[in-house]
């Protein structure tokens, strides 16, 4: 299943950085350091090294079995980023994407 759940940090200058990208099973990912392919859902993370050496800040990725569907990936992203709902404070409800 091909999807991406993306967590972005926007700095004071408006520049955006992808902190995490939760990809579905869209195919394989090539790990540049090990020279190995990983398959299935995987999580991209920003690293200082990738910022210095690669085209994409979030080139690093690790295989995961924590989710299979978009809905599960959103839940995992929220858990990893410690995103909690606070009602009546004008916060966006990520669960609207699950309906």
């Amino acid at each position, binding site marked *: 299943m091909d999807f991406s759940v993306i967590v972005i940090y926007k700095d004071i200058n408006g520049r955006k950085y992808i902190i995490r990208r939760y990809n579905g099973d869209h195919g394989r*990912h090539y790990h540049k350091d090990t020279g190995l392919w990983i398959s299935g859902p995987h999580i991209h993370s920003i690293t200082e090294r990738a910022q210095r050496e690669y085209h994409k800040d979030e*080139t690093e990725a690790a295989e995961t079995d924590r989710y299979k569907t978009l809905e599960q990936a959103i839940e995992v992203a929220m858990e990893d980023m410690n995103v909690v709902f606070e009602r009546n404070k004008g916060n966006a409800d990520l669960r609207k994407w699950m309906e």
Partner: protein
Amino acid sequence: MTGDVLDLLKQQYCSDLELEERSLNKYMIHTGYTYPDGDELHILLEKQDDAWCFTDDGHTMMWLSYSDFELTDTRRSLLEKTLRSNNVRIDDGVLYVSCSNRDYDRLGACLRSMIQTEIQLTDLQYLEKDVVRDTFNEDLRQ
């Protein structure tokens, strides 16, 4: 000696190509080529009506959307030139290269066309706002 190296090259190059069945008449093609973030180019071979067709299922445009990418007139023009020059069709953000029955001897060329298009389209990332702003400022200082 040259012949041996060529044979070896052909053998190794072709053995990198793998097909993974995804559903009836739909295969994911593993080419070993990647987007700049290490994810493999998303290429599917599927049967539509009576013809085989290569498609990216919209993945390339989704990949471009990861960054601050806006399809302005200039970027759209570059995108259309890339598609035209590679004989690739786009429909609702999905890329297609169709191979009718009489084109089966060109299946390899159709696949190369899809590979080349995806790689060239990802180069549009260098026109995202942050990059353009930085290069513009650098050019201005010179």
